[in-house]
């Protein structure tokens, strides 16, 4: 399936860009007339993925985060967030709720949030090369129901 509309965004891994990234993605998706809850779910999921790139992938060094968003005919939104950071050696363990490599201040719930706020999430990663997180969510447009 080909996207009917798409956008790309590349940002530096500065924490100040977390807010910009989630607002930019939600502004792009807003054209589908999502509910307040759907839009806030997307914002939160994007914030999780982008924060993980900054905190874990690049571990507070400078790197680039590549974001792609596609909107499909059936109002499904696909969001891909990619980094060229350290990668995840054990994806299954990383996605387990409450697992975190930084137990002092992190809850280990980022993936759990992405999973419960989106319809589908997929994670591909190569240790030492980077990680790609893909989020999918169908917007149940208000006019059509």
């Amino acid at each position, binding site marked *: 399936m080909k996207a009917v509309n798409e956008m790309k965004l590349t940002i530096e891994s500065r924490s100040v860009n977390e807010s910009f990234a989630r607002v930019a993605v939600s502004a792009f998706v807003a054209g589908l007339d999502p509910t307040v809850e759907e839009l806030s779910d997307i914002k939160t999921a994007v914030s999780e993925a982008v924060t993980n790139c900054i905190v874990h992938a690049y571990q507070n060094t400078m790197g680039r985060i590549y974001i792609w968003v596609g909107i499909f005919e059936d109002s499904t939104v696909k969001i891909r967030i990619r980094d060229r950071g350290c990668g995840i050696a054990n994806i299954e363990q990383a996605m387990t709720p409450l697992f975190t490599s930084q137990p002092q201040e*992190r*809850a280990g*719930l980022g993936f759990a949030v992405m999973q419960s706020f989106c319809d589908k999430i997929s994670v591909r990663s190569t240790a030492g090369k980077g990680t790609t997180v893909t989020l999918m969510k169908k917007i149940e447009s208000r006019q059509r129901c």
Partner: protein
Amino acid sequence: MPVRIEADKNLTTAYLSGEIDHHSCVFIRDEIDATINRLAPLELCLDFMHVSFMDSSGIGLVMGRYKLMHSLGGRLRVRGVSPSTMKVMKLAGLDLLAKIDCKGEKR
């Protein structure tokens, strides 16, 4: 200012505002902990009335403050939580750790 703190020796209230994410969390955490460590209050109240967004960094913030208060023998309360923030808190089971009042509920 993402946090304003009012404190006496029994109760410390932290009025949070704006978006709580990894970027804003560090400052908020340091401000609250400085007061808690100085005064060791009986209760810490986190006021979310003016918080417009929160992700899992905020869960870490609340859980960390819960642990700190617990270690000092004090209590944690959370109030003024919006529906979208409540959704994130519930997912983390924060409602089992602290008393959470939602926006519009009587204090």
